[in-house]
């Protein structure tokens, strides 16, 4: 892949077209359960709005989360025809990448799409396959799109592994994981459980990373009880701000679970959780490791060394973590635009980049902006 601008977004959101599922899932078999867009009435609006519906459950919130792609920045489209082609059509989306001078972007989901928990495993995997096939088409249009596969959490591990292998063949370059699958799916195992070893083994063998995005499904758990006195914007600000609470806990969790020692070439990527907190969490892990002599408890490698061997974090607005980059690991830092979400640096990503990287020598700049990502995703 040609690097023209020297900037790769490790966290953007790929919206699927509104017929992505209806055109791929059997109408005879799934009928009205298939994810699609329908017209509904909402009290707040004096016109019929459109919403996604999955398994006959209307997905509250907007029909597409793309406020930075709108002419009126910050506006959330209420009807599908308002959604810009540059958000869900891969050919047109390349224009947005060019406008922002970004070479490539890693595609996390834009709802619905990360997970499909609607009661039964058979329906889940049918949705997952449709999602993975549709998102893979972005990569088939251009290698500048780096899609991440959804996985069928409710299936046996052999089925999960088989779907990941299938998705990777179709063009996916990693999987999107939950911070604690046992919280989301009754009876599912947490990340330290040997249940997942075949998946870790397969991903290590194929060479694709495990990705956790923002709260990684733990937003409702690692938070104080919601206060009803906040307006929507305030509540959004508070919940977005605390999302990195997940990564600060999952990183020590993975380190102390021994999973990194067991799968020493498996990469873990934490998206949209920033950098500035990382060195203090690593210092805390090292501090505890020393004080409690945890090498005698099977954690043979120093936690910060494990992190630098196998973990990645990213930034988009900040300067704190850039100042601390050498305590985090200059080879472990990626950049993200978060297009087309509200916090996104689009379409002025380079302004944000220069703000964050003022005074950083070019060798480090290049690593942070594209070389680390190119290595991680094996872009030739």
């Amino acid at each position, binding site marked *: 892949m040609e690097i023209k601008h020297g900037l790769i977004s490790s966290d953007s959101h790929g919206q699927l077209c509104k017929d992505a599922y209806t055109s791929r899932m059997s109408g005879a078999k799934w009928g009205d359960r298939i994810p699609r867009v329908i017209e509904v009435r909402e009290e707040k609006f004096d016109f019929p709005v459109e919403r996604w519906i999955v398994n006959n459950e209307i997905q509250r919130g907007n029909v597409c989360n793309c406020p930075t792609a709108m002419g009126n920045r910050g506006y959330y489209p209420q009807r599908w025809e308002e959604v810009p082609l540059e958000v869900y059509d891969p050919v047109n989306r390349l224009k947005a990448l060019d406008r922002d001078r970004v070479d490539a972007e890693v595609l996390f989901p834009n709802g619905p799409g990360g997970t499909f928990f609607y009661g039964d495993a058979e329906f889940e995997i049918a949705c997952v396959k449709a999602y993975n096939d549709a998102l893979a088409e972005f990569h088939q249009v251009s290698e500048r799109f780096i899609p991440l596969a959804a996985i069928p959490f409710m299936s046996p591990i052999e089925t999960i592994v088989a779907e990941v292998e299938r998705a990777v063949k179709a063009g996916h370059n990693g999987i999107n994981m939950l911070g604690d699958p046992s919280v989301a799916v009754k009876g599912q195992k947490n990340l330290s459980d040997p249940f997942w070893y075949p998946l870790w083994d397969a991903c290590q063998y194929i060479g694709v990373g495990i990705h956790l995005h923002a709260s990684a499904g733990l937003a409702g758990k690692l938070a104080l*009880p919601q*206060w009803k006195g906040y307006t929507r914007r305030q509540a959004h600000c*508070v919940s977005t*701000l*605390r999302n990195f609470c997940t990564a600060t*806990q999952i990183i020590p969790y993975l380190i102390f679970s021994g999973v990194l020692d067991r799968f020493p070439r498996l990469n873990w990527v934490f998206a949209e959780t920033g950098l500035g907190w990382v*060195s*203090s969490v690593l210092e805390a892990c090292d501090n505890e490791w020393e004080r409690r002599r945890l090498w005698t408890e099977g954690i043979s490698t120093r936690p910060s060394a494990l992190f630098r061997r196998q973990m990645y974090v990213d930034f988009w607005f900040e*300067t704190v973590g850039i100042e601390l980059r050498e305590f985090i690991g200059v080879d472990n830092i990626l950049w993200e635009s978060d297009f087309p979400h509200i916090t996104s640096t689009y379409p002025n990503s380079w302004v944000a980049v220069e703000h964050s990287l003022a005074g950083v020598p070019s060798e480090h700049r290049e690593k942070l902006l594209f070389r680390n990502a190119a290595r991680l995703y094996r872009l030739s």
Partner: protein
Amino acid sequence: MDLKYGFVSVDDHVLEHPEVWTSRMTRQRWGDRIPHVERQPDGNDCWMIGGHRLALPEIAVAGEKNRSLHPKRWEEVPKTVYSAPERLAAMDADGVDYSVLYPTVAGLAGETFGKLDDPDLESACVQAYNDWLIEEWANRSSRFVPQCIVPIWPMERTVAEIKRAVAKGHKGVIYPASPMELRDVPHINEPVYDPLWAACADLGVPLCFHAGASPRIQLQPSETFSPPVADAFRGIIRSVSSIAVLANFLFSRVLYRFPKLKVVFAESSLGWGAYEIEYADYQSDADGLQSEGYPLKPSELFQRQCYFSCWYDQNSLRVRRYLGAANILWATNFPLVTSSWPNSRQKIDVGFADIPEGEKRQMLWQNAAGLYGL
């Protein structure tokens, strides 16, 4: 104030000894509900509080080589953790002038008695702790800075105890950051808590949220972790769980409404706070909160009224300006496993090596001296 070492440790813990409550609460009235230590059939001791069983707290014998061992029976507990004279010696050994005290059995964040369903029992337990801390610690030496715990609800009781305790000499108020998780009380952002903020602001004592008050926002260690690994994990998770507490508090509007209120995030550590403050400024802009009555940036609000307390941090000191050197306090965290005791001075010498003398003084004692009126 009298400074020999130039260090006020703002986050240390006393361990309540078995007679704290039994000698101050009448058996006639409270019977077995008085907090007390009981020997179990397996030979280990545990605390019994209002009928609930609580294992002996993880008090490390700070300074021991192997900190994964901790006492199972009361007689194994070292005196430095519950006896004032011994504690003074431990402070001298570590170069600490003053020590700001938090509880242990009463909850690292003062949460234990808030879970009791009998408000009278809650008040009696709280008062006994507060009295003990004055009688056996503060009265023994002015180098101890006592902070009171309070009944979490109703506010009349909370405020009455704050006034009583401060009159007796307490210099700070410990309150669990998420009382609504302890029992059925309103969300902490509700204006019904205003008397609490007002009392602290008016009396000029800081309100202290110690990390760990909300177990719900801390991931549980995996059942596959060995006990020392699980303990290490809990220790790390406790401080970062305050991320959610700070996120809420920066936008709850309490700080706007009580500009004289000072808030300490105890056992927070530093690095994630610098990031969260920078992020809060960025995200409140992105979400357009200026238009919703947030006249100050989160960083301005924080620097006007909030404090972080740190103990192991070295690298993150480089980014102290995001919080403000005037808003950072230092501690030994004695006698928790994570404590820097007895090598706090060496750790400080390394961590503060490149920091200008003026800022170093602020963080090591001046900020604390101002906050606690030493």
